[in-house]
């Protein structure tokens, strides 16, 4: 019993049922173990790993530089930018906004940079439900290729203070200009 000391020799061979169960479980685990790295190599969607160290001031300059070059409009006081796919796209997280609104083109591949000016935030792109952490001091780079056009929202999903629930941004994906 689990509340009494076992017999002197308890290192006994497994019974047939136990061997079958452990073998099946082990095979299942091995399949999962192998499949995750394989899927990383062949799959279409993986979490990014590209990271740079960046200060809030430097990142802010990069954001403002992109806005100055590619601004195409304004919405609710937020600049709307339409950057070229050859250049990095910067989104800045701070208490409590995602800045600016970027407009991407469907089918083109972008380097999407994310960094925070103050505390940790969570980049949650809805409704497609893609989630990445945004940390201060780090520039996290996701390589993305939009496959659907339309209007998307960015919600913050890491607690960042009393304004957390108001931290909503926007993103557009347009059909490519011919």
């Amino acid at each position: 019993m689990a509340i009494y000391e076992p017999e002197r020799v308890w290192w006994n061979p497994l019974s047939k049922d136990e061997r079958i169960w452990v073998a099946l479980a082990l095979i299942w685990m091995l399949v999962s173990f192998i499949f995750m790295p394989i899927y990383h190599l062949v799959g279409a969607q993986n979490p990014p790993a590209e990271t740079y160290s960046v200060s809030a001031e430097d990142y802010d300059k990069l954001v403002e530089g992109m806005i100055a070059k590619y601004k195409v409009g304004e919405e609710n006081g937020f600049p709307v930018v339409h950057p070229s796919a050859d250049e990095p796209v910067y989104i800045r997280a701070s208490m409590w906004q995602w800045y600016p609104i970027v407009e991407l083109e469907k089918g083109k591949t972008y380097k999407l940079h994310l960094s925070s000016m103050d505390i940790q935030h969570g980049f949650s792109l809805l409704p497609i439900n893609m989630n990445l952490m945004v940390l201060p001091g780090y520039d996290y780079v996701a390589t993305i290729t939009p496959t659907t056009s339309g209007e998307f929202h960015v919600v913050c999903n890491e607690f960042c203070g009393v304004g957390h629930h108001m931290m909503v941004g926007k993103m557009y994906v347009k059909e490519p200009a011919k």
Partner: protein
Amino acid sequence: MASIFRTDPSTGLKIDRASENLIRWNLIAALATLAVGGLLALGVVLTRWPSVHLLPLDYYYRFLTLHGIDALLAWIIFFEIALVHFTSTVILGTRSYVPWLGWLAFALMLIGGGLINVIVLMGGADVMFTSYVPLKADPLYYIGVILFAVGALLGFIIFFINIVLSKRDGGYKRSLPLGSFGMLAASIIGVLTLAHGAAIFIPTLLWALDFIPWVDPAAYRLVFWGLGHPSQQINVSAMVAVWYMTVAFVLGGKPVNEKLSRTAFVLYILFINVASEHHLLVDPVLSTWHKIVNTSYMMHLAVLASMIHAFAIPASIEVALRKQGYTRGLFEWLKKAPWGNPAFSGMAISILLFGFLGGITGVIFGTEQFNIIRHNTIAITGHFHGTVVAGTTVAFMGFTYLLIPYVFRREIIWKGFASIQPYLYGTGVALLSIGMMSAGSFGVPRRHYDITFSGAPFSFTFDPSIDMFLSMMGVGGLLAVTGGVLYILLGFGSIIWGKKIEH
């Protein structure tokens, strides 16, 4: 020395006065913190249910922070320290060798826990359970966490002292009983885990006191989750030990193969600490292959251990019940199992829900590709309510119905209510967990005051089906709170008014 022991009439367990008192007070503290944590849960779940949206903004985040502290940390660790004393003294039939250390540990946990509660309720630490830097709390908050953690660390160290001296005094000859062995695994993981806690909370305290300028947020997350997730493996090991002990106490069952069950506990110790990096799958800094090695290779070996227990425990239940004569057909034993005994049903519900709700979703959400569509959504909250609430908490609730007669020498009051309590609570948590996981698959964030985003510059409307899932969560939460209140009433009621067991 003989005079300090008494013998429990129903089990023949030898209990000495010092460990009896330690187990009693740790249990009382566990019940009290669960009562507070559960009331906070009521406020939180009624706020997340959009059609109720109960609490004001600041109280929502405050209650949510404290709910994590009281219901996840305090209730479970106080209960585990009670289990440490129980399995390292009572089960072995020897005395508590360092009761003073037990009381010191208890006092530190009580003071630390109390301090956290006061600071959070005063509004000094609206930082959530994770307190991710550079979100800053009052230094007293970190001091509270450190005091609680040091107390818990001393509590787990008592286990090692007791088992070494117990062997000297003949409490066991060669091997620990399996229940104690499981708690040994829990205590080893506990020490490793709390070392991570010290490694991160001490620098964070210094930063909050302005002695050091900056704690790197990525490093904080890495080391914090070395505390945060492996500490859930303390809970898993303790829960599995409770499952084995419940089978022994209620049915007289024995583990079908000690080698298999013990090997599984060793797998937990070896592989779970590094597997905790699934929290960092969508974090910057760490390389992909680093993440894959930790979450894939390490995690699946720990899951293998759970798969072994998932076989071994039902098997020992079946063997025990067949021995009692329930041998007709394949499933007579299952039908005739003591489903009205809350200790047994608590264990069975815990096994079922831990495996199918908490365990499986954990493996899925912990894969690299899946994590990107679940990270920080309420699906994660659903997952860990499947593990630590539907699993650990339900198992501990069931075991309470055994501990109160053994340790307090009182009968459980309101037997009818007691026999439905695990079902009520289990159903509630299952609904809550499934509701959360379903809503999370539409991207509903966790730790979020208002998913209608009132006051935001832009508004997003979720898929309308989340209303149904969040209502399911709300109804489940109400059921679970009802079951939880019943458990607290039964627990304290039995301790105070239960019929005395004389021998």
